């Protein structure tokens, strides 16, 4: 008989290999980091520009996702219109779509010659590709589904009983949403927003395809890392380190919230 708690080797060995595989590259990043030159590398104005742009764009994309994505999530969770499940599958497609493909699709839609982009250009003179706004659009496209899927699950799991109770007390549907539903799914909303923000921060493929790589305007951290790898490997490692720190901070922030489903207060 095996003692309780021993791990059989056919499971233990692959598990160990998997853990090493995931951790060794990160450890490598720490080992090879040019610690001494770090302040100089990070003080570089281009690096700071990229970091600032990344934070601003990821936050803007999250804000846009919150405004539109929460409503979309509510409709997906609550609407009984036929075909809503097809819509749900389609709007969450960017979750699995290669980001570069997303970037190409965005160009075809919002590019200067795109279906909507041409109209936008003609009527307002605004063009999105290769602008900071374009970065936000690309990041929103890729990251919003993460928020939608998280919040939609919370809306589904959210106890309708409380909403009924609110209705019997005289609250309209919108009031119920504002005063009961949203507060009840608060934790999931936060989790969804953080996931969305983290995904937007790391966005590369769609951004470089749709918005290009202009320092100070569209060059976000991941783009800067990729570029620096060719010209200044030390800088690439330093930039990667910054992104790693941000990711770890996000993960730590999520840990407590992640397990709560959103219906529990």
């Amino acid at each position: 008989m095996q003692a309780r708690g021993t791990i059989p080797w056919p499971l233990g060995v692959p598990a160990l290999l998997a853990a090493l595989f995931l951790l060794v590259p990160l450890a490598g990043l720490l080992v090879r980091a040019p610690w001494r030159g770090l302040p100089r590398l990070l003080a570089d104005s281009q690096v700071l520009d990229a970091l600032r742009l990344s934070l601003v764009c990821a936050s803007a994309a999250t804000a846009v996702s919150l405004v539109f994505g929460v409503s979309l999530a509510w409709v997906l969770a609550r609407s009984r219109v036929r075909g809503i499940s097809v819509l749900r599958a389609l709007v969450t497609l960017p979750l699995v779509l290669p980001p570069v493909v997303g970037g190409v699709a965005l160009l075809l839609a919002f590019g200067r010659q795109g279906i909507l982009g041409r109209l936008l250009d003609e009527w307002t003179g605004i063009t999105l590709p290769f602008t900071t706004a374009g970065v936000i659009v690309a990041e929103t496209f890729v990251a919003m589904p993460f928020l939608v899927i998280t919040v939609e699950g919370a809306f589904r799991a959210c106890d309708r009983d409380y909403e009924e109770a609110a209705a019997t007390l005289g609250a309209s549907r919108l009031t119920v949403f504002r005063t009961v539903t949203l507060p009840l799914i608060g934790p999931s909303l936060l989790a969804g927003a953080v996931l969305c923000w983290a995904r937007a921060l790391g966005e590369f493929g769609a951004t470089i395809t749709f918005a290009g790589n202009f320092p100070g305007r569209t060059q976000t951290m991941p783009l800067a890392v990729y570029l620096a790898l060719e010209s200044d490997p030390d800088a690439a490692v330093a930039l990667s380190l910054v992104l790693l720190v941000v990711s770890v901070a996000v993960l730590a922030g999520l840990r407590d919230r992640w397990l709560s489903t959103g219906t529990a207060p």
Partner: protein
Amino acid sequence: MRAPVNDRADRDGSLRMSGTVERGSFHLAVDLFVAPGEVLGVLGPNGAGKTTLLRALSGLEALSTGSIHLGPLTLDDAATDTFVPTQRRPVGLVFQNYRLFPHLDVRDNVAYAPRVQGAGRRQARATADTWLERLDLTALAGRRPHQISGGQAQRVALARALAADPGLLLLDEPLSALDAKTRLDVRAQLRSHIGEFNGPALIITHDPLEAMIMADRLLVIENGRVVQQGRPAQVARQPATQYVARLMGLNLYSGTLDPATCQVLLDDGGTFTVTLGDDDPLASSGAGRSKRRVLVGLRPSAISIHTTRPAHASPRNVWKGSVASLELLADRVRVQVDSSPPALVDISSAAVADLALRPGTGVWLSAKATETEAYPDPGTPRRKSTEKE
């Protein structure tokens, strides 16, 4: 805004409903009237449609046919396509599981209705404080729902519903979520609080004692249909169905009465001799003293149990059977006897020992004709008496 019902003192604020609700294959058909200040107890087994009735009254479910009127208001009328949505009905509903908002403290739970109906935050809280004081909850105002007991939560739920100033109050099994000890205290309090409410009130329960204490009148629903209505005492004495009889602790038999001989031929086998008073409507039934369907109620304590055929002649109904089971109640033993007709018999535990009763023991049962209460069968479809309650 909600439709105002403030002038219900000079206008009739009664609840009138006559309609049906279809819910999948389930069909509920109810006619009812509740006067202002009256408390109607709605009794019925699980799945009978009690909660569906409350949902229809509160607008969480729409009528398929018929209408609901509250005083001068039409809340639902299938014929004219009128449907007042839940949030605009002046109906207070206390849910079975209370459904207090977990993210709000007790005061804000009670202030919720005035707040969403347009009162300012301070005014809503002031209204809430009035209700908290009236229901003796002031000390709990700052607590969250998970920090209070079940009995307290029940009062908060009532306060929250009353703070909306409803014209109709509905309570769905208000005591079922409480433990037995709390229930006794809360029941007495709840009765007095509901008594102060001056609109019509409905209280759903499956506990007959609760219904008798809380309600002025009872309405019994089974399988989506009203099977009996009346004052609690009358329902207890003359149950219309096996379910009600079991609730009230009575043996109930259906059969055919021959007024000439005072004999009832029972559907479950056997014959009972019953007494009919001179003023008994059955004795002088209009249709020329012809045979007719009746129900016979028999208290378990009115039946005697013997191990040999009783020799003395005074009890006039004697029948044979065997003990199916014995159950110890508080101060007596309830013996279930397989016989035609089957019977529940209450005897003392000393008698059980004296007679050496155990499952399988052959016994004779006897009951005086004067103990059997026969009354006209209202003619509702009834489950077989062998079915469990």
